[in-house]
């Protein structure tokens, strides 16, 4: 498995999440339904093979570990990502983050307000500092990619 393959496998999944699953989450009739979708998202995303999980890719949350891989296509100035997490719900939430930013240009990524978008999806509580799920760490790692 190479980064190129992972990127190629991840891209259509993120697109599908954006086009289909975001609406499902917004319209979920109860918390059970919302979490079922979140966990499906985690399952849909291709996993990063163990031996590719280098320490520098680790995004440490308090309770679970996550890994982020980044590719900057210099020709088009677009940013692409691959991620994995030990925890399924966290992976689902991170997948939502990624589908919103995948393929953005440097300027778009710098200006992107994830908090605002998460608020629209009723997911803002997950970005709170008090939660040890590592989502805030993932946000700052994604933002670092545009520097």
């Amino acid at each position, binding site marked *: 498995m190479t980064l190129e393959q992972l990127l190629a496998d991840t891209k259509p999944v993120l697109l599908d999440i954006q086009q289909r699953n975001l609406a499902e989450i917004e319209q979920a009739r109860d*918390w*059970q339904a919302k*979490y*079922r979708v979140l*966990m499906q998202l985690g399952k849909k995303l291709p996993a990063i093979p163990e031996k590719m999980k280098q320490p520098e890719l680790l995004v440490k*949350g*308090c*309770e*679970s570990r996550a890994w982020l891989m980044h590719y900057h296509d210099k020709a088009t100035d677009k940013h692409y990502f691959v991620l994995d997490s*030990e*925890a*399924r*719900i*966290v992976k689902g939430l991170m997948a939502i983050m990624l589908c919103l930013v995948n393929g953005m240009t440097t300027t778009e990524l710098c200006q992107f307000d994830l908090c605002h978008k998460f608020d629209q999806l009723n997911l803002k509580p997950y970005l709170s500092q008090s939660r*040890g*799920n590592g989502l805030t760490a993932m946000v700052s790692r994604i933002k670092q990619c545009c520097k």
Partner: protein
Amino acid sequence: MPAFDVQQFRQQFAFFQQQPEWVYLDNAATMHKPQAVIDAITQFYQHYNSNVHRGAHQLSQQATILFEQARSTVASYINAQHLHEIIFCSGATAALNQIAFGLMHTVLQPGDRILLTQLEHHANIVPWQLHCQRHGVIIDVVPLTAEHRIDLVAYEQLLALGPKVVSFSHISNVLGHIQPVAEMVRLAKAAGAVTVIDGAQGIVYQQPDMQQLDCDFYVFSGHKLYGPTGIGVLYGKTEQLEHLTPIFAGGEMIDSVSFINTSFNKLPFRLEAGTPNIAGAIGLSAAIEWLQKYNNKQIIQHKSLLLKEFYNGLTFIKGIDILSSHVHNAGIVALNVDSEHPADVAELLNQQQIAVRSGQHCAMPLFSCLARPGAIRCSFAAYNTLDDVNRCLLALEQTVEILTA
């Protein structure tokens, strides 16, 4: 004495009236405070607030009396021989840091050994590592048995290496297992070691008797004994406290200062630098006085009934991996849902308003030995009810259902 009435006990916690929808099973992290404690703190700030030990005015004298009464309440609760053996600090972590720092170069010399165990909280590992590395002291670790209890055979073998200090927890903060501390102290003393007990979880389980237990140090936090956060106790025998170099300096702990020679105040003040947490000590004292109105044997019985029901209910839920044994357990159950990450389990419980903790609970060496990425921890207190147990079981069932759907 009348039977333990859990509803009467629970009614004294305003929190449960404010948040009736929550099932609080994170008691090993921190406990709720009864009205008696909240009132004592409020009254101190409203009526007596002053600094202690140094004011020329009557208000300061009143505050000092209350603060020293708190010391006396703690001393008699744990049956310390002397009042000055109770050192107020910010909590068990601060106390362990003071002990580890304070024993270097007095009791511990380069090349000496100390003995810890595999199931310690990081607060009873890392302070020792920090200071031992700098002073060339060697750390040995007692392994666990297959039942995740301290291996007493290995313990005796490691004691034969002649450690100068042995430090272990009264009750495992992850598994809830009660350690045979009396026996461990006896063996350590026979080997000539100074004994330190991390009583962070032990203090609320039973009233420890310092003179009977005969350990050299016992430490605990107030907030795990129905008291406020930011206050804790370092108990030490007089001759052992004399060995401790103060980790903090300044304020009340000083006798006289010059640039040639500074001399320290006597115990307990020598180890209480700066303005102490006066309201915290008064709150802790109020918690102890309040708790003493109840019969601890009945509380233990109540908690073991909760535990029995919980274990019984767990057997009906598929795919639960229980790490804690119900035998000699103080009321803490670590568990996992098979092949699921504990963070997911805890989040789904959180959605159902069941408060538990998940992760490695500041005990990574224990988890490397358990070969699991972590666990969720349900920790019960005297104010928990059978209804709490049942709601947690139902929520776990629903969690398993969602995770395995």
